[in-house]
């Protein structure tokens, strides 16, 4: 479920009550919110799920307060960060510990996740089958064999397809599309 709508267009449609747009907004930012919770703040699954649902509930309820629709990504990042800190402080109140992560480390990781979202957007532009191949290999950590079986392509050709697909994603940043569709 990915369209070429910009973040701002997606937000505008959500405001109009388009449930499909909302589902897409959640899909687009779910990995980002999840990564902030578990990588930047090292929440366990249970606490990460609480924060994850809280983030999207607040986004849904407070979307009208967003002044610049194009700024949805930093807004979500900031909201997630704040709710993770609240969760850690709540946990520390019950079980005192020194688990709040270093602010600078969090800043660095959030910057990397922001870059990762930019790459993800480029991958969406490239589309399938590259999107699926790269997603399975890099994001889902699947083996060549598993990818080959799932996509019904010879496992021996996966490495070269990955390489060509990476080149195509890179081409999105060069402002030109290189290479042909992976065969």
């Amino acid at each position, binding site marked *: 479920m990915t369209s070429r709508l910009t973040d701002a267009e997606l937000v505008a449609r959500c405001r109009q*009550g388009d*449930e499909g747009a*909302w*589902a897409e907004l*959640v*899909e687009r930012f*779910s*990995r*980002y*919110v*999840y*990564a902030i919770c578990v*990588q930047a703040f090292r929440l366990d*699954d249970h606490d990460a*799920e609480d924060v*994850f*649902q809280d983030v*999207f*509930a607040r986004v*849904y309820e407070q979307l009208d307060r967003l002044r610049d629709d194009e700024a949805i990504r930093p807004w979500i990042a900031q909201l997630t960060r704040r709710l993770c800190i609240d969760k850690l402080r709540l946990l520390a109140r019950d079980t005192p510990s020194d688990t709040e992560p270093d602010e600078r480390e969090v800043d660095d990781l959030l910057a*990397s*996740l922001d*870059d*990762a*979202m930019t*790459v*993800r957007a*480029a*991958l969406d532009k490239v589309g399938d089958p590259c999107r699926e191949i*790269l*997603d399975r290999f*890099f*994001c*889902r*950590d699947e083996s060549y064999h598993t990818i080959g079986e799932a996509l019904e392509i010879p496992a021996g050709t996966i490495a070269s397809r990955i*390489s060509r697909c*990476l*080149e195509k*994603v*890179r081409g999105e*940043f*060069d402002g030109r599309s290189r290479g042909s569709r992976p065969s």
Partner: protein
Amino acid sequence: MNAYDEERIGRLLRLLPPAPEGWVRAAQELPAARAMLDELVARAEQDAAFRLQLLADLERAVAAAGYEPSPYVVSRLRQLIEAV
């Protein structure tokens, strides 16, 4: 020099594994959950007995009314019912 060379693209993609499907689905169903909340709150405002049931055992009352008492619905309804 492109700031996004192939190696960096791969490294960045690894930072974004998918969130658990159930979490994503629950968040996507928020609009339906909100509609459900509106109905439950409206009923609680008009029906004192239903409101008492909600106050006594919110999850059971929601389920008895034919709705799925998801964690979001339960926690949000608890806040809303206290204000009714």
